[in-house]
């Protein structure tokens, strides 16, 4: 092999760990969340704690983001199933308030799971 060949092989070998981490490793914890309100979707970062008020079909739903997790905090619906869903953190997790037509899905760069069963 020539010196150029060695350099290319070395470059490719160094590239492998980066590609493995970037394309194949599993990141369980999500980085952002998609909040769907009817037909509209907004993306929010989970990096900073904050509280969002979303006006749904029935009224305002309050969504909390805290320590990289997100949850329905209050909702005008009767059953409160959305609130019972608790904190969502892992990529692919989602919860919904059907009466108020609002859903939350956790997104990440490298989702570990293609779908979540519950």
């Amino acid at each position, binding site marked *: *092999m020539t010196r150029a060949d060695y350099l290319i092989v070395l470059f490719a070998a160094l590239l492998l760990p980066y590609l493995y981490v970037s*394309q194949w490793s599993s990141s369980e914890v999500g980085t952002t969340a998609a909040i*769907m309100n009817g037909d509209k979707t907004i993306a929010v970062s989970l990096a900073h704690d904050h509280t969002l008020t979303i006006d749904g079909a029935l009224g305002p739903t309050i969504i909390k983001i805290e320590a990289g997790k997100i949850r329905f905090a209050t909702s005008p619906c009767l059953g409160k199933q959305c609130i019972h869903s608790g*904190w969502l953190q*892992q990529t692919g997790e989602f919860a919904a308030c059907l009466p108020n037509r609002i859903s939350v899905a956790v997104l990440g760069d490298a989702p*570990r*799971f293609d779908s979540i*069963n519950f």
Partner: protein
Amino acid sequence: MKWLWLNLTLLLAFGLSGCSESPQVHQAKLFTLGTLVDVTVLHRDEAAAARAVEIVESELATVNAQWHAWRDSPLTQINQQLALGNTVAIDAATYRFIQQAQTLASHSEQRFNPAIGALVALWGFHSDERPDSAPPTQEAINALLKSAPSMADITLTETTLSSNNRAVQLDFGAFGKGYAIDQAVARLKQSGIENAIVNAGGDLRAIGSKNERPWRIGIRHPTAAGVIASLEIIDDESVFTSGNYERFFDFSGQRYHHIIDPRSGYPAQGTVSVTVIHRSAAVADAAATALFIAGAEQWPRIARQMGVDEVMLIDEQLTLHMTPKMAQRIQLEIDDAELNIVGGEQ
């Protein structure tokens, strides 16, 4: 030799980075079937993926309209006629649907019992939202238990449906979602879709794979944030979980969930969740409910009778009971789990 090494290394590098010509994952979320439905389609053509989502939405909406237990539907009309003691004319699709449910109910020894619609309604679960109000009285429950409605009371022909028990009120809440997903997946296959996941409110059927690797499914922890276990789908499988956390209400410090034991008339006790893997979503749906009600003692026998051999039951002590086949498939995502592998012959 030097080119062999060079090509091998570069092949590995590009192989890991993924092929740019690979089909892409397309996802859509729909509000239908009384829940949030997540559709994942792997396809090169975005328009084809969008058509696939429309197919799923259409199929689920059709089943929902046909079998809705408390909004005006063909099913509520059937229930009205059964309460009057009348015979109902049915079509071929209705016959197949009820026949499959009747067979599953029989194999489950009526743990899966779609004939207890009146009991489910008495508990207030025939509504989109059950408020935190008082549970029914013991007297009211006893009155319904006395007539003991079951799918064995139904007389079914290819064109007629009748019942010798006027207390039979059909509610396919533990079967309809699975049936609807099966219908949607069948239509997807007919239209040429080979790789997809239809996830309706956490219960799913997945076909094919994701660019040469299996679809990966996480099973959410029933009592804590995160995932308790994971598995990879083999070709075409459904994963259904029935849990006491899905629908419930609280009253006077007591929690009442929606999985009613047809024998006691009360929410089934002792189980937190049951997960079933089966090719048919309808079978997985019915079995998850039946095995939840059967509980930690009886579920292996009922599972064998229902033809399901990949089951995980989590009891109130958070012990994981599973069949040997499930234990081989599943990867636990928690530490210090207490496992009970049940039955050597599945």
